[in-house]
């Protein structure tokens, strides 16, 4: 599909906006529909579009597999880390009101970081699954 002019041009126009939309949905999850899951899936969809049009090898040059695997684990670690920060600062596991002197700011901070953790894990897992399916050649009959 790399040689098809229309597909290439449209993909080059759309992919930056898809990735930007993913970041928008992530950070506006507090004020409108959105949040970590949707943002992770939309980000993965943008990268999948790039891989479909330009080839998996070119996508792997800027998003290699070890990075994707690390992002997968980093999201869960970040989530649990925020929970443990609640214990360290004096509350229970996943208490957010202790994260700041003002309890509402503490809640905002906690929600912000765990949504980023969720988005990282979901994006990493969806991308990794796509990489594994796309890289496995079909068996010859």
């Amino acid at each position, binding site marked *: 599909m790399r040689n098809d002019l229309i597909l290439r041009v449209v993909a080059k126009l759309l992919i930056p906006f898809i990735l930007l939309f993913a970041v928008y949905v992530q950070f506006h999850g507090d004020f409108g529909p959105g949040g970590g899951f949707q943002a992770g*899936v939309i980000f993965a969809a943008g990268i999948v579009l790039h891989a479909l049009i330009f080839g998996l090898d070119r996508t792997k040059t800027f998003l290699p597999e070890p990075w994707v695997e690390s992002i997968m684990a980093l999201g869960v670690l970040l989530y649990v880390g925020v929970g443990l920060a609640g214990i360290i600062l004096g509350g229970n596991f996943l208490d957010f009101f202790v994260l700041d002197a003002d309890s*509402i700011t503490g809640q905002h901070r906690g*929600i912000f970081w765990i949504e980023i953790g969720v988005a990282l894990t979901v994006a990493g897992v969806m991308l990794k699954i796509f990489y594994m399916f796309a890289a496995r050649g079909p068996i010859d009959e």
Partner: protein
Amino acid sequence: MESLIIIALMVMMLVAVWLIIQSRNLFGVVVLSGVYSFLMATVLFALDAADVAMTEAAVGAGLSTVLLLGALYLCKSEEGKPLHRPWFPLALSVALTLTLMAGTVGLPFFSDPMAVIHQHVVPRYINDMPAEIDVPNIVTAVLASYRSFDTLGETTVVFTAGAGVIALLRRRRNGVTNAK
């Protein structure tokens, strides 16, 4: 007007599912499942579930279709003619559905503000949320703060699925690689 739209969309969903059952061309079945997911997302949005609709559209119509097409490319098959008559499975499905319908006699009427699910915990979430968390999206507040244990479990499930797919598909068959 809104009810008419919901009814029309649901009829289209039933038509799509009927075509999925009948069709034996697997590529068409995968595309129809993407169509079905989009219609489901629109119905969910008409039912005022904005977050759920966005997730269903992105996950069901986007990523599921890509994964199914990837697996279909690796499997390369059409569905064979069914060997058995479908009467027994059809009878079993109808019996199951009638049993479930008998069990839903006590379900609340559609859009009843006095239904049980609107009592107990939910008024506390909606009314106390501005004072405790002050995040306009109530679904995000419940998901991330009031019920963050469940979200931790869900994130772990997603991670486990990724780890499982890595464990299953890691070894590459000798000598056969994707030419692209």
